[in-house]
């Protein structure tokens, strides 16, 4: 054994000891990343020493073999050695891989930002479905509140009071001015997906009197509806509005919306269709998914009930 090998062994051992000393086994040994790092350090030490020894040996002992090629550049020549087998195999594999990448790999498996988004969205949508698809009751209201706060509160306010008339006050079903406006001007907000508009005051007859609804009657019935379907004006409601909105004001499917209380179908329809009425314009909220719309409906119902 010559000095080179001896020196190599000494340096290896010293560096391994240094690695051992510098590693905090008490805290670090259970961590997989630390374990891989320490393993890497050991491999690095051994490999480095091995390679250094190999080439130093080669410099010490190698002799000139083979034939020089004909050409030389300013006296610097090149051996006419055959291509090393390993190198040739890797070169051939690289060419095959190049073909694959050019014809199949890149066209078919190319990275796409949108592709990643679609995968990501699918995972999250599935997770949402799995976790929230069947929630009901308080959980649904809870979700509705959080959706409300991030999407609706900007106009309807944190307390759902409509911020001084900027949007509908969701703590009550309907305000008197809104009822009045609908009666006087008619209304069609596609609230239940229907095309038939509610007529304006020139199309609203009071069955009790057999004549068009009067200002006093509009006032009375508006107060009655805004008051939660109670108080004076019940007779006007029965004579004029009940034909479409039902005697209890709860609306009829595909005919009229519920004006006594909020119901899920109504709120969901307002979210889907938007609304333009006495208070102003509400945009469609297209970013919400089906369950979130139901949740907002549940939350809105919970406010006034």
């Amino acid at each position, binding site marked *: 054994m010559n000095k080179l090998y001896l020196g190599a062994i000494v340096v290896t051992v010293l560096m391994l000891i240094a690695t051992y000393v510098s590693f905090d086994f008490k805290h670090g040994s259970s961590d997989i990343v630390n374990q891989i790092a320490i393993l890497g350090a050991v491999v690095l030490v051994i490999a480095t020493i091995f390679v250094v020894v190999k080439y130093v040996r080669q410099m010490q002992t190698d002799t000139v073999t083979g034939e020089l090629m004909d050409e030389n550049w300013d006296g610097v020549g090149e051996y006419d050695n055959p291509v090393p087998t390993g190198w040739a195999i890797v070169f051939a594999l690289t060419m095959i891989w190049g073909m694959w990448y050019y014809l199949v790999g890149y066209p078919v498996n190319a990275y796409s930002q949108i592709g*990643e988004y679609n995968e990501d969205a699918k995972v999250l949508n599935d997770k949402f479905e799995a976790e929230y698809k069947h929630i009901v009751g308080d959980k649904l209201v809870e979700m509705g509140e959080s959706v409300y706060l991030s999407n609706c509160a900007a106009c309807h306010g944190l307390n759902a009071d409509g911020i001084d008339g900027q949007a509908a006050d969701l703590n009550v079903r309907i305000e008197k001015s809104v009822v009045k406006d609908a009666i006087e001007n008619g209304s069609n907000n596609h609230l239940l997906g229907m095309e038939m508009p509610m007529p304006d005051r020139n199309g609203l007859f009071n069955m009790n009197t057999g004549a068009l609804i009067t200002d006093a009657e509009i006032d009375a019935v508006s107060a009655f509806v805004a008051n939660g379907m109670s108080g004076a004006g019940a007779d006007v409601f029965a004579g004029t509005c009940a034909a479409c909105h039902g005697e209890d004001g709860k609306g009829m499917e595909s005919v009229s919306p519920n004006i006594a209380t909020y119901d899920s179908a109504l709120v969901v329809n307002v979210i889907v269709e938007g609304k333009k009425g006495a208070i102003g314009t509400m945009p469609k909220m297209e970013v919400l998914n089906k369950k979130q719309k139901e949740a907002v409906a549940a939350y809105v119902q919970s406010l006034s009930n």
Partner: protein
Amino acid sequence: MFHWLEKNPFLFSVGVFLVIAFAGVITLIPSFAEASRPVIGTTPYSTLELAGRHVYIKNSCNACHSQLVRPFKSETDRYGDYSLSGEYAYDRPFLWGSKRTGPDLMRVGNYRTTEWHENHMMDPEALVPGSIMPGYKWMFTNLADIDTAYAEQITVTDFFGVPYNKAVPMKDGSTKTIFMGSTVEEARADALAEAKLVAADMKNQDVKDMVAKGQIPEIVAIIAYMNSLK
């Protein structure tokens, strides 16, 4: 066989450059050209909207608000579809922004209304408790610069062929034509007509009076611009 190449390093370098540059050109240019074409449904800005865009730039709205919905679920849930490069085809310059102190405004026209902007520009905190956005009260009295907007319309039509007064395809298969006046008077009249539609939805009486008198305050222009962001 190729020693002559090795003996002419400059020529060799130029050759390598040309080969790589050619590969770059044929891979980059077609997809770039495709992606920068206007998306169906993207229309040029009307005169009033463009004036509003100038108000947006003048007040550095882009310092706090971005106009770029990234393709992440958290963003598309909040703002709507992710942005496509073709949607900026008529933005000169684009207003992507690089910092979101406030929310993204790429599609604000979908979920905010004229009245909301009106109240919000006057006093943001009244609508959004805790908002650090300042009020922009001067927009209610300063007049929008319609003439400059019209000048920009002429420029972009001449230099970039922006299709004003031409049918632009919309998503539902119909077409829409964005009008550009042939004289500055016509452009002013067109902007005023559009401003009247916006002002009809507003509540501020001073603004309504100004528009009725034929003046266009900045607030009307910027709301028209906001509503056009979809």
